[in-house]
């Protein structure tokens, strides 16, 4: 399966759904389900066919698009995005599964969901940065409409607008950075491969890099919820319908991080070096501050939203290390957290569906009536506080190993946040929602039926697979990361001096 057909599958699916009259609900659902299933299988095939140990792009396709503006359609996968593509398609499949219960305007819902899926996959596989932005923004309108039409809660409107405006602003600022890169580099292209080669010849001056980098950092950072641009996330996910929350927190949020790694490491090494301390401090804002926020939440959705932000902090921490180990860890976390966030929000969706609330004070003892959902939720929450056996753990620990040599103090604080603060709120959630005596009104709520378990099992299975066997990812990620880190550290003598151990580590890795 070529990447283009993988990318087009959801769009074709959306088109097919569009052609079906709105009252053939089952057919619409089946088409959507089939589309995402095909996408997922295709992504698995691509993942399996991907050669580990190769740094170059694979499955590359390249077509000129707007020669007048120097833009081209260029897709390909390497270690940085292969895992993300797989994750995105799995999450999309799961999100489609859990949406089976959408009763109101299912046609529109599935079209939007498929557009979102296509946008997410497109953003990951695009090697032309224009298309990265393009596809990322493509998912914005579906997010807005889905939240508005099928969202929940009193704060729905406010949250919907907040998330939309924040994401737009972030994306635009990032676009400004990309355009500045485009203009100031003189390469007249946004193709990452060409740009990289061009800038390797004629690097931008330190001042220019230090000027462009913050645009990208704060722009893409906003998409990820980098502190202090985080406040859209938790209320947004709390208000979003299940599938949207899954897709957004799981997949689309990763686009920003992915783009940061993809762009800044090879292209703006000096800018990165200049701003590394800032990133390090801000990431603590995510890990600690958002952890504290999660501790105070009475609403499970808000808790999960804030915990998701805390996880993103680890990614920024790994990025700040600019080391092979750290950045590999970041990519691992991105994949793992995508699966995890989707799983958590999916389970939350079921909980809300059967109980009608996500207010933890109103819930309790649900493990008894919901053995499967409850157990899966325990697993998800445990994975969320970094329990080994799930994919998050190898990611987080790899980040900590990667960062330790350059920023040990930050690792100490981050570990405290991850192990302790994370543990506190996750366990509190289990305690209040699942443990304790079951409330009378919830004694008879329905657990997930036979095949309704499928999406959760898929996500859980993937989480455990990558948790037990992270090597399957690491071996794929490593060469590409080594490549970008080499570009990031070899560029300027100043950077190299600051990361000598990392640099040597990288050399020995070969």
């Amino acid at each position, binding site marked *: 399966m070529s990447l283009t057909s993988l990318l087009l599958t959801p769009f074709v699916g959306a088109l097919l759904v569009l052609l079906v009259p709105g009252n053939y609900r089952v057919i619409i659902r089946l088409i959507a389900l089939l589309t995402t299933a095909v996408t997922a299988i295709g992504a698995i095939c691509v993942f399996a066919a991907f050669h580990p140990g190769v740094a170059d792009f694979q499955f590359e396709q390249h077509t000129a*698009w707007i020669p007048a503006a120097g833009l081209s359609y260029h897709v390909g996968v390497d270690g940085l995005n292969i895992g993300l593509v797989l994750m995105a398609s799995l999450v999309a499949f799961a999100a489609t599964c859990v949406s089976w219960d959408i009763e109101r305007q299912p046609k529109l819902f599935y079209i939007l969901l498929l557009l979102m899926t296509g946008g997410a996959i497109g953003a990951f596989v695009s090697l032309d940065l224009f298309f990265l932005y393009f596809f990322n923004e493509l998912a914005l309108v579906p997010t807005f409409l889905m939240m508005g039409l099928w969202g929940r809660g009193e704060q729905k409107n406010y949250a919907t607008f907040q998330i939309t405006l924040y994401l737009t602003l972030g994306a*635009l600022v990032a676009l*400004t950075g990309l*355009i500045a890169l485009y203009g100031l580099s003189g390469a*007249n292209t946004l193709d990452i491969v060409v740009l990289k080669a061009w800038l390797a010849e004629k690097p931008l001056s330190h001042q220019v890099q230090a000027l462009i980098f913050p645009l990208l950092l704060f722009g893409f950072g906003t998409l990820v919820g980098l502190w202090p641009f985080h406040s859209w996330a938790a209320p947004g996910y709390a208000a979003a319908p299940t599938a949207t929350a899954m897709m957004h927190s799981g997949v689309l949020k990763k686009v920003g991080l992915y783009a940061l790694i993809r762009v800044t490491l090879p292209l703006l090494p000096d800018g990165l070096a200049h701003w590394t301390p800032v990133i390090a401090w801000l990431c603590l804002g995510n890990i600690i501050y958002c952890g504290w926020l999660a501790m105070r939440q009475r609403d499970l959705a808000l808790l999960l939203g804030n915990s998701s932000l805390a996880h993103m902090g680890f990614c920024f921490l790994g990025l700040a290390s600019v080391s092979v180990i750290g950045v590999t860890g970041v990519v691992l976390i991105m994949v793992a957290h995508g699966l995890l966030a989707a799983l958590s929000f999916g389970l939350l969706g079921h909980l809300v569906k059967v109980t009608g609330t996500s207010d933890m004070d109103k819930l309790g003892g649900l493990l008894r009536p919901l053995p499967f959902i409850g157990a899966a939720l325990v697993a998800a929450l445990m994975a969320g506080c970094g329990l080994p056996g799930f994919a998050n753990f190898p990611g987080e620990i790899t980040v900590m190993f990667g960062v330790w040599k350059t920023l040990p103090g930050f690792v100490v604080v981050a570990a405290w946040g991850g192990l302790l603060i994370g543990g506190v709120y996750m366990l509190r959630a289990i305690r209040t929602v699942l443990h304790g005596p079951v409330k009378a009104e919830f004694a008879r709520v329905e657990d997930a039926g036979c095949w309704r378990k499928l999406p959760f099992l898929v996500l859980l299975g993937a989480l455990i697979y990558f948790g037990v066997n992270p090597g399957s990812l690491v071996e794929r990620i490593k060469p590409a990361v080594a490549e970008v880190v080499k570009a990031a550290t070899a560029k300027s003598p100043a950077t190299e001096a600051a990361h000598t151990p990392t640099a040597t580590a990288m050399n020995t890795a070969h």
Partner: protein
Amino acid sequence: MNYSLLTVEILATLLGVGVLLADLWLPASARKLLGYVAATGVAILLTYALGSGAPADGTAFGGMFVVDAMSNYFKGFFLLATLVVLLMSIESSETLVGYAEYCALTIFAAVGMLFAASANDFILMFVALELITVTFYILVSFSRGRLGSLEAGVKYLILGALASGFMVFGIAFIFGAANTTNFYEIAAKQAELAKSPIFLVGLLLTVVGLGFKIAAFPFQMWAPDVYQGAPSTTTAFLATGSKAAGFALLLRVAFGAVPDITAHWSRLLLGLGIVTILYGSLCAIPQRSVKRLMGYSSIANAGYLLLGVAAASLSGGTAVLSYLGGYIFTVLAGFAVINVVVNRTESDDVSAFAALGQRSPLLATGLTVAMVSLAGIPPLAGFFGKFLLLKAVAAHIGTDKMFLLALLVACVGVVLSIYYYFGVVRAMFWPRNATDLTPIAVGGATRLAVVLCVVGVFYLGICPNALVKTAKQAFAGLNVPATAAEVHTAAK
């Protein structure tokens, strides 16, 4: 004299006169037919102008009338806008008193625009503009049963005449200083003219007149009131044809006649652009009337376009032209929907659009696409235009920090615009309280118009290559100074 260059204009005039005459003989019941006839005529004209009829480059009337890539570019869009406006107007053929005249006047306004696109002389420019403006006085106040329409007409009249007054005075000064009104001849002397205060003042006063047409700050005052009061079809034409004509002339004056002076004034244009964006976007936020909202949005969009003009480069001009191309489809799609809703509910309040998603999925889709495209989100046409504009502006941030400011303001403007555009979308899909859920029947013509525009918006968003290429050629046909950035690019 090469009259073949004027074929399109002549045919359009004949069409207008024909419609007027046909009205005399046709029975009242066949008035709707007239709309179709006019629309078909324009459609034929459009295919003709874009296809075999596209005249080769050349000039006529002593260099007064010029046909080049840019004039053809604009003519296509003027005819397209006319076509869609005519299709839209069929919706109100039953209710509008003097429908045949409405069609004819629309076509005459289009004739003015066609001439404006080719004007290469201040006199022709003035006359063509006046044809447009005077026609619009009538079109704006066409629903004279409504006070709003008349009030809008009067406001447009007084302010339009004021702008004309300044413009005429400006042209007088230009004539006095340059002893000619032809753009080419002025371009040849611009080095010495740039030192003449009287020429510069004259030029500025002329630009004031154009600024009025495009509704740029501080000449934007009329736009919201007139957009709100005028019949929706007229508003649509005002927002597309009239504005595009303003930009066509602005580009021609700025880059065809006095490119060096324009480059010198780029910071002024940039500043105006920035203020215009902010003004339009901020004022639009609390709007409840969708047409008025579109008025402010039109102001904001003029601001973005001014940024492209201020960039004073090939990429800037290309961006302006591409942006306009996408903008026309987008705005027309929006107004085609607004027109129907306003006709049905006799209100253009946001609440009139409540639950449109259920009442008419087609209309809701059309308006959503329009709003999203205006907000500049891919894969729609509006996005690509904004991208090119930002790109053109960004090329200068290395040399002038004001361009960086403009870039950031543009970003802020887009975010603000999402706030108000998406507010409309929200009203359509999840209104606070929707009482009326009866389906809205949509006429075939409007259906066609909406589909045409939506397809155009998607097409230009996904495959903008042809548009950008044409735009680039069109702008390159003007006398454009090569900026440092492009010299650099060319060297590569």
